[in-house]
């Protein structure tokens, strides 16, 4: 009962993970992502030791396919795991064990892999991939968000008769730094995908302010003033001004 996308931005080399599931606080189980190294995510009945180990093996220089072989040899319950691995060059390995429940599978495409279990069917994976590819020049976090929404709109989790709610969700994107550029989460919510979109949009408004405040503290305006400016701009344009406009960017 999870659907996820790992993606890479071919322009910038940024790497990211988008995920949503019925289980709570899934973002707390997404440590397998490192700038300039790769992404590794184990789900279904996850083996928590896989993801940190996978990142170390990718950093040593092993190929994703080889890492997957080592996972299989290292885990007596490998058949219950669903795993996707991407390295910094966009090479991908994926595994959907026969012991995962409900409709389960993965779909590999250029610079992305969609994978999920407990889904209504393969159309969810197609929805994830299509969402990711809609606007290939957008920032990776938006492409991941659109992918998750594409999976949700294709039916998401559950079966033909019952939808299973997405209760938690997360997006992480790394660029070149030790810590993620983007790290947004929803831990317990009845419609976590919608809530994640809200959190992401809000965070994008603050992103540059937070970065600049840390780098040039002597020039930083107080956050109160920043928030008041935001409010004023929203009041000017009450018809849900899109975030890129609030940031002063020209829509593409």
């Amino acid at each position, binding site marked *: 009962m999870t659907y996820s996308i790992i993606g890479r931005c071919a322009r910038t080399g940024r790497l990211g993970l988008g995920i949503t599931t019925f289980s709570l*606080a899934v973002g707390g189980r997404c440590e397998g992502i490192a700038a300039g190294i790769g992404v590794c995510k184990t789900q279904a009945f996850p083996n928590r030791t896989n993801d940190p180990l996978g990142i170390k093996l990718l950093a040593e220089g092993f190929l994703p396919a080889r890492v997957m072989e080592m996972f299989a040899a290292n885990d007596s319950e490998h058949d219950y795991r669903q795993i996707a691995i991407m390295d910094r060059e966009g090479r991908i390995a994926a595994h959907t064990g026969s012991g995962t429940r409900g409709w389960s599978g993965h779909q590999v495409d250029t610079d992305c892999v969609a994978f999920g279990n407990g889904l209504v069917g393969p159309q969810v994976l197609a929805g994830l991939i299509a969402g990711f590819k809609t606007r290939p020049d957008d920032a990776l976090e938006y492409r991941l968000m659109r992918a998750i929404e594409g999976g949700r709109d294709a039916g998401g989790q559950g079966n033909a008769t019952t939808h299973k709610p997405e209760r938690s969700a997360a997006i992480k994107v790394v660029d070149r730094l030790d810590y993620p550029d983007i*790290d947004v*989460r*929803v831990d317990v919510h009845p419609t976590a995908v919608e809530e994640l979109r809200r959190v992401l949009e*809000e965070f994008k408004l603050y992103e540059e302010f937070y970065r600049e405040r840390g780098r040039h*503290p002597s020039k930083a305006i107080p956050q109160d003033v920043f928030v008041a400016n935001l409010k004023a701009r929203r009041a000017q344009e009450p018809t849900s001004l899109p975030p890129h406009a609030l940031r002063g960017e020209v829509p593409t």
Partner: protein
Amino acid sequence: MTYTVLGRCHRTGRLGIGIATFSITVGRYCYGVKSNAGVTVSQAFANERNNALALRLLTQGFTARSVLQQLMENDPYAQYRQIGVIDRSGMAVAHTGPHTRGWSGHVVGENYVAFGNGLVGPDVADAIAKGFLAEPDADLEHRLLMGIEAGRNAGGQGTRERHKAERSAALRVYSKDAFADIDLRVDLHETAVEELRRVWNEYKQYEAYYRDRERNPSGAKGQEEFMKTLRAAEA
């Protein structure tokens, strides 16, 4: 406009962070904790590079005091930062730069740092420390949450006249693994401390189930079946 408790469990050596602030998605700054290494948070005008550097230094074996000194010597804006560090032995240190805004300060003891800026006064930091120390043998996540809630109850952020809302909060605890034992967040909420308590109360019911499902998948119940047992227990 942040208050934080860093803690180490004297019984188990577990390490953790509890934090609440006006800024959104504060959990993303809380990666500075690692099993058998230490725990650190840089806040106020946060130097985002500090946590990764501090963790590497702690892993190499530098003491908390030495790590803090190196962070400050590496930063032309150290006067704007507020930093707490605990090493694996429990040595705890903190720095509150004179250019942090509002009432700012820290309370430090063996195995803990309670610190914040933009607070209503020193009683908030004192309350956090007191909340953390109230049940010294309880699980670390419980103690960290008690610390944060005590800080909120003492007035939290803002001034005596005007409370500043906690819009995000996080709770992270590491034990012996390469991944967190507890990693919970509230990224965007009007009362994030209350929401963090709700998230924790909800999550803790599932904690053992999730762990067991991962380790023994062949015998695992479906999550909905598990939830039925939860509801039955409630009724």
